[in-house]
């Protein structure tokens, strides 16, 4: 790769790069960006994405965002940062817990669980405007928001009718519709990327396992059979794999289930791993690990071979969610 940065007009900067395949003696890509100096970091990410895609054939995720909750004492902050953890912005600050942030499909909004009303309720926040809307504050618990692929509705876990069950609500609140009716706990719903299926956690069979049901309604089908604790399903962007949390001999680890074959692969070896979230190119899974007595983010490749820890300053970092690919 050959790059050049030169001053351009009006205090801006021109960044040019060309990517060569030395063996083939061919130019793979050539781009030029004129940007303000403050955008150099973002530009570097775009270049990295281009290089990554040319070299691997997969979309790069260097320009994507992640969100997570930082807890310091009794202080909670919902933050959004670049995928590498830099450039963190605070989106919400509270003295009460914040949980389960979920990106809208276009990346413009976050749904999350707030305890500001001294009980869990679901709120949707518009990131650019900073405005919020309460979408579920029924009697009992309101939690586990998951966006539909068309952004119009959210799946939520509500305990308003007794035990926790799964419902669908409008993403602006209201129009609540019950989707499950089991004698146990049904929670942690997730839409498949094509919108056809809903995977979820249920202990209707006596132990918490992962099930899926048709999004349009119909009987649920059990997907996990190893051990007595498999929870928190998250679909990969291609819909072929589900990442989840599995307990084995007292340790909670991230595992993945290949839907076509039923094959389960354990990806991590922590003691209290939680909250897996796929990169939008499906190649990495970001999750929460317990390191040195506090929560830290870590990432693992889809096959479990490459592991990375994202170290952070003091406090617990928890509940990560990886944002979508940029639309431009």
């Amino acid at each position: 790769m050959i790059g050049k940065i030169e001053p351009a007009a009006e205090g801006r900067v021109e960044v040019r790069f060309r990517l060569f395949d030395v063996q083939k003696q061919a130019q793979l890509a050539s781009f030029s960006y004129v940007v303000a100096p403050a955008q150099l970091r973002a530009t570097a990410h775009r270049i990295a994405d281009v290089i990554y895609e040319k070299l691997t054939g997969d979309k790069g995720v260097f320009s994507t965002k992640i969100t997570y909750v930082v807890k310091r004492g009794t202080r909670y902050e919902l933050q959004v940062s670049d995928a590498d953890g830099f450039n963190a912005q605070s989106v919400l600050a509270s003295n009460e817990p914040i949980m389960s942030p979920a990106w809208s499909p276009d990346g413009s909004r976050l749904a999350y669980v707030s305890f500001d009303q001294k009980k869990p309720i679901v709120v949707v926040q518009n990131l650019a405007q900073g405005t919020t809307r309460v979408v579920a504050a029924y009697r009992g618990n309101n939690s586990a928001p998951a966006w539909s692929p068309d952004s119009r509705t959210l799946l939520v876990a509500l305990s308003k009718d007794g035990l926790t069950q799964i419902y669908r609500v409008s993403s602006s609140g209201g129009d609540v519709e019950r989707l499950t009716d089991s004698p146990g706990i049904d929670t942690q719903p997730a839409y498949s990327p094509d919108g056809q299926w809903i995977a979820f956690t249920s202990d209707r069979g006596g132990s918490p396992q992962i099930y899926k049901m048709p999004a349009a309604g119909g009987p649920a089908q059990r997907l996990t059979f190893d051990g007595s604790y498999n929870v928190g399903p998250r679909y990969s962007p291609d819909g072929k794999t589900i990442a989840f949390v599995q307990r084995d001999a007292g340790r909670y680890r991230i595992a993945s289930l290949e839907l076509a074959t039923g094959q389960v692969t354990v990806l991590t070896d922590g003691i209290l791993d939680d909250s897996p979230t796929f990169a939008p190119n499906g190649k990495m899974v970001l999750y929460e690990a317990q390191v040195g007595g506090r929560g830290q983010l870590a990432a693992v490749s889809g096959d479990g071979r490459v592991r990375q820890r994202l170290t952070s300053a003091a406090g617990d970092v928890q509940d990560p969610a990886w944002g979508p690919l940029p639309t431009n």
Partner: protein
Amino acid sequence: MKKIALYLTLAILAAACASKETKDETPVTDRTTSTQPQTPNTGNSQITQQRPTAPVTGLSDAQLAKRSVYFDFDSNAVKDEYRGVIQVQSKYLGDNRDKKIRIEGNCDERGSREYNLALGQRRAEAVKKVMTVLGVSDGRIETISYGEEKPVAMGHDEAAWAQNRRADIKY
């Protein structure tokens, strides 16, 4: 000297056993939102901030102060040793029909946060069930959960976990 030491010890013990009210008075500072969240009319039960006042039925302050039920790992069964606590609170509610409660269920830190939120709520429901059998009407009890988010003990061992697996009755 010995007498003073004894009085000091008793005073310290009494302070440790008294139920502490640790309400955080700091207002929420919300740096990025500019409007107040609008709560839809969802029939949310209003929780009054009253505490149980002078006993009217011979229940002592010490009895009324016990408002927590503790659970075994992975269980929401109400153990016999806590039936007395629930009976005292149910009796108080029976004699004070204007009072409402919220039962808050909690879990230890192990496991997935969202599933723990549901498990905690199931613990709160188990306590509520005992109270409704004892005559407290369903509409006066809301059951919610903090999952693993509000531990009272911060350790990573069974001694801490046992204190966190609890349902708290709040007025």
